[in-house]
C-alpha cells in the first residue's frame, strides 16, 4: 500500500515536472527570437515557433503539414541541404531565400540539425531561420554607400584632378596674363617714360623753337632790314642791269656783226639739234640759204649732202666731249675740205659748229709733201752715187789716199750717210702722210726682232761705253704678226735715240713683257731726258728737244714720228715717261690677238 502510494507520488512529481517542462517549452517557443521549425523525416513542417510564424506569415494551421520546400526558393536548395544533413547532422548558416505566405522573398540564413530518437534513428530536423533582410538591406545600403562613396571618391578624384588641371590651367593663364600684364605695364611704363622723355624733349624743343622763333623774329627783323637794304641795292642793280642790258645789246650787235662777218662758218644747234643760227660764211660753205635750214633739226636735212655728213660727224662725236675737231671733205666739185670744230655750250646744251675751210692748207701741204718726196727722190740718187764714190775712195779702189785725205773723205762719207738717212726719213714721212707706207705683216717673235736691232748696235754701245741690257722674258712670248722691217725701224729709232742722248757710262735697258693682251716693249735710258714743257711734241715731225739740240747731237726729228706711225699702224700705241736730266723710258705695245685681227683688216 505504501509502495503504491510512493509510486503515485513519484508519478505526480513526474507529471508536475512534465507540465512545467511543457510550460517552459511554450514560453521558450513564444519568446525565442530565432525562427525555429520542426520538420518530420519526410521534410514536412510539423511545428513552428512564434518568430517563424511572424517571419513566414503563415499561421500554424496553414504551414504545418506542408512540405518545407514551400518556404524556400529554389526548393531544390533546401532539399539538397536537408540531404546533406543526413551525413553531417548539422549545417550552419547557409544563405538562401525564404518565400513568405505573401510570396515575398526574404534572404535568410538557415541552420539545420538532424533529430534522432534515443536509438540514434533520424526522426526529423530542427530548422532555424535568421532573417537577413535587414542585414542584406544594410549590406546593400552599405555596398551602395560604399559604391557611392567610391563613385563619389572617383568623381571627387576626377573633379579634384579636373580642378587641379583647371587650377593649373588657370594658374598658367594667370601667370601668362600676369606676364602679359607685366609686359604691357612695362611697355606702358616704357611708353610713358618715352612719352615723358618725348614731352620733356618736346618741351625742350618747344623752348628751343620759341627761342628759335624769337631768334627768327629777330633774324626776320634783321632780314627785313637787310631786304630793305637789298631792295635799295636791287634798285641800284636794276639800274646797273639796265645799263648792262644796253651794253649786252651792244655786245650782241657786236657779236652778231662778228658772227656775220666771221671768216669761218658758224652753225649753232640747240639741245635738240635744231639749227638756231647759221652765219653767211656757214651758208656759203654748206651751200644753203638761211631760210632753208634755220629752225630745222639737223637730222631732217639729210637730203642735203653737207648736212648729211655733218650730222654723221656729230653723231660720231663722243658723248660729253666738250670740244672736238674733225676734217670733212666734200668730193663734189669744187673739192672742199672743212675742219669742223664742235663746241658744246653747257648751260643751254647748245652746240656751236665752226666750219673752217682748210682746202687751201691741205692743198699746200700736199704740194709740200710732193715736193719733199720729189726732192728726196731726186737727192737720193746723187747722194747714193756720192756714197759709193766716197766708199771706193775710202776703200782705196781709186788709188792710195793719205790719212788726212781719208779723214776728210770719212767725214764726208758720214755726212753723206746722214743725208741719205735724212732723205730716207723724209721719204718715209711723205709715204706715211700720203698713205703709201706699205706693210708686209708676218708671224714673228718680236724678241728676235729686238735682239737683232740690239746686236746691230753693239759696236756703237761699246764705242760710247754704255751699258746695254736686254731683259728677256722668262717665258716664251707668243708670236705676233708684224712687218719685221718696219718694226726693226721703230725699235732702231728708240734704241738709236737712247744711245745718242745717253752720255758715256750711262745705261740703256731694254725689256719685253707679255701683258696677255699685248706685248709691251720698254726702253729705259739714263740720258738727258726731255724737258717737261716739250714733252707733248715728242712724236711730232721735225721735233728736237732744246736740250737735245744743245748737246750737239745729230738728228732729223723724224724718227719718233715715223716710229709712232709704224706702231699705230700695227694697232699698238706709244708713250713715254721722262724727266729732264734723269733719262727717259719709252714704251710701245703690239696687240696679240683680237686687236691684231683688226690691224690685219687694215692691210
Amino acid at each position, binding site marked *: 500500500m505504501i509502495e503504491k502510494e510512493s509510486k503515485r507520488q513519484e508519478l505526480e512529481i513526474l507529471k508536475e515536472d512534465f507540465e512545467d517542462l511543457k510550460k517552459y517549452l511554450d514560453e521558450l517557443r513564444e519568446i525565442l527570437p530565432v525562427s525555429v521549425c520542426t520538420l518530420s523525416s*519526410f521534410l514536412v513542417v510539423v511545428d513552428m515557433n512564434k518568430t517563424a510564424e511572424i517571419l513566414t506569415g503563415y499561421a500554424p494551421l496553414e504551414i504545418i503539414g506542408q512540405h518545407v520546400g514551400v518556404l524556400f526558393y529554389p526548393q531544390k536548395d533546401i532539399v539538397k541541404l536537408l540531404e546533406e544533413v543526413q551525413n553531417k547532422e548539422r549545417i550552419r548558416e547557409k544563405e538562401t531565400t525564404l518565400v513568405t505566405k505573401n510570396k515575398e522573398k526574404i534572404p535568410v540564413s538557415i541552420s539545420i540539425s538532424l533529430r534522432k530518437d534515443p536509438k540514434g534513428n533520424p*526522426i526529423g530536423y530542427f530548422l532555424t531561420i535568421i532573417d537577413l533582410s535587414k542585414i542584406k538591406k544594410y549590406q546593400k545600403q552599405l555596398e551602395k554607400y560604399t559604391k557611392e562613396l567610391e563613385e563619389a571618391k572617383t568623381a571627387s578624384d576626377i573633379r579634384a584632378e579636373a580642378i587641379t588641371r583647371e587650377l593649373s590651367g588657370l594658374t598658367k593663364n594667370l601667370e601668362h596674363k600676369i606676364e602679359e600684364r607685366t609686359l604691357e605695364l612695362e611697355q606702358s611704363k616704357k611708353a610713358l617714360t618715352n612719352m615723358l622723355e618725348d614731352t620733356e624733349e618736346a618741351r625742350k624743343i618747344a623752348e628751343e623753337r620759341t627761342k628759335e622763333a624769337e631768334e627768327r623774329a629777330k633774324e626776320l627783323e634783321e632780314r627785313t632790314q637787310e631786304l630793305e637794304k637789298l631792295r635799295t641795292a636791287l634798285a641800284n642793280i636794276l639800274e646797273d642791269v639796265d645799263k648792262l642790258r644796253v651794253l649786252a645789246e651792244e655786245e650782241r650787235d657786236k657779236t652778231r656783226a662778228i658772227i656775220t662777218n666771221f671768216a669761218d662758218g658758224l652753225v649753232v644747234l640747240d639741245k635738240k639739234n635744231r639749227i638756231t643760227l647759221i652765219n653767211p660764211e656757214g651758208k656759203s660753205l654748206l651751200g644753203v640759204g638761211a631760210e632753208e635750214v634755220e629752225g630745222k633739226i639737223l637730222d631732217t636735212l639729210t637730203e642735203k649732202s653737207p648736212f648729211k655728213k655733218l650730222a654723221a660727224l656729230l653723231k660720231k662725236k663722243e658723248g660729253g666731249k666738250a670740244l672736238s675737231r674733225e676734217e670733212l671733205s666734200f668730193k663734189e666739185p669744187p673739192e672742199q675740205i672743212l675742219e669742223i670744230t664742235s663746241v658744246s655750250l653747257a648751260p643751254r646744251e647748245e652746240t656751236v659748229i665752226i666750219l673752217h675751210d682748210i682746202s687751201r692748207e691741205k692743198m699746200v701741204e700736199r704740194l709740200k709733201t710732193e715736193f719733199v718726196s720729189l726732192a728726196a727722190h731726186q737727192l737720193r740718187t746723187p747722194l747714193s752715187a756720192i756714197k759709193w764714190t766716197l766708199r771706193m775712195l775710202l776703200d782705196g779702189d781709186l788709188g792710195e789716199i793719205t790719212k788726212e785725205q781719208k779723214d776728210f773723205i770719212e767725214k764726208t762719207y758720214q755726212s753723206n750717210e746722214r743725208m741719205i738717212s735724212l732723205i730716207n726719213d723724209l721719204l718715209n714721212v711723205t709715204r706715211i702722210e700720203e698713205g703709201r707706207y706699205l706693210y708686209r705683216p708676218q708671224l714673228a717673235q718680236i724678241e728676235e726682232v729686238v735682239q737683232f736691232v740690239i746686236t746691230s748696235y753693239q759696236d756703237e754701245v761699246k764705242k760710247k761705253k754704255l751699258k746695254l741690257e736686254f731683259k728677256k722674258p722668262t717665258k716664251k712670248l707668243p708670236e705676233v704678226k708684224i712687218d719685221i722691217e718696219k718694226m726693226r725701224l721703230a725699235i732702231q729709232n728708240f734704241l738709236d735715240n737712247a744711245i745718242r742722248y745717253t752720255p758715256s757710262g750711262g745705261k740703256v735697258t731694254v725689256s719685253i713683257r707679255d701683258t696677255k693682251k699685248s706685248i709691251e716693249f720698254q726702253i729705259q735710258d739714263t740720258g738727258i731726258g726731255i724737258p717737261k714743257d716739250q714733252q707733248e711734241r715728242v712724236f711730232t715731225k721735225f721735233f728736237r728737244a732744246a736740250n737735245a739740240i744743245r748737246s750737239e747731237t745729230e738728228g732729223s726729228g723724224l724718227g719718233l714720228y715715223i716710229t709712232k706711225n709704224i706702231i699705230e699702224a700695227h694697232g699698238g700705241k706709244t708713250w713715254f715717261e721722262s724727266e729732264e736730266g734723269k733719262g727717259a723710258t719709252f714704251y710701245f705695245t703690239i696687240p696679240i690677238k683680237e686687236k691684231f685681227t683688226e690691224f690685219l683688216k687694215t692691210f
Partner: protein
Amino acid sequence: METLAIMEKKSIKFYIPSLEEIKKIMKMPIKVRGSAFEGELEYILKKKGEKGLKAVEKKTEELGYPIKYKEIQDTKWYPVGLKMISDYAYLTVFNWGEKEIAEIAESSTKVSFIVRLFMRHFLSVEQIFRASARLWSRYFNTGLLEIVDFHNVEKRGGHGYGILRLKNFKLHPLHCFYLSHFFIGIAKLTDPRLKEVKAEETKCMFRGDDYHEYLLKWTYK
C-alpha cells in the same frame, strides 16, 4: 429541434449532440488530454479571431460548462464531456457543419502538442499506423486502438490502405466523424507525397457493431 434542424440543413452523417446527450457524456469517466482542444482554438482564432473565440467561450458558459481555451493545459486530463461542449458551442455559435469540423479535426493533428511529442514515430505511414495505439492512449484514458490491416505500395502513383479498430470507446457519432478526419490529418502529416487520403468508418458501435473500424485509403503523387 435545434439538432434536427442542423441535421436537416447539413444532411450529414453526423449530428450535433443534444444538451441531454452532453450532460450524459459529462458523467462518463472518460478523460481527454487538453491537447485535444488545440485544434479548435487555432481554427476559431484563424477563422473568427479573438472575438469569435470569446463568443464560443461565452456559449460554453451559457451551457453551464465554461471553457477558457487558452488556459487549457495540453498534457492535463479533462472530462471528455468538455470536448463535446466545445464542439457543440462552436458548431452552434458559427453555424458550422461537416466541413468545418473535418478541418478542425485535421487542424488538431497539426497543432497538438501530443502529436508533436509523438512525431518521432512519424517515419512512415506504416510506422504511424503501428504506433496508433500508443498515440490513442496519450489522448484518451479509455479505449483501445489497434491496427487490423495495412497495405502500402510506396511509389509514385502507388496505393495503400489501413484499417484501424477502436474498441471499448462509445462517445457520440459526432466524435466518430471527428476521429475519421483526425486519422486523415495524422496520415497527411506523415508523408507529404500522399496525394489523397480518405477515411471511412466502416463499423460503428452506434450502428450496432461491437467496435468502431476505420478504413483509410490513399494514393501517392
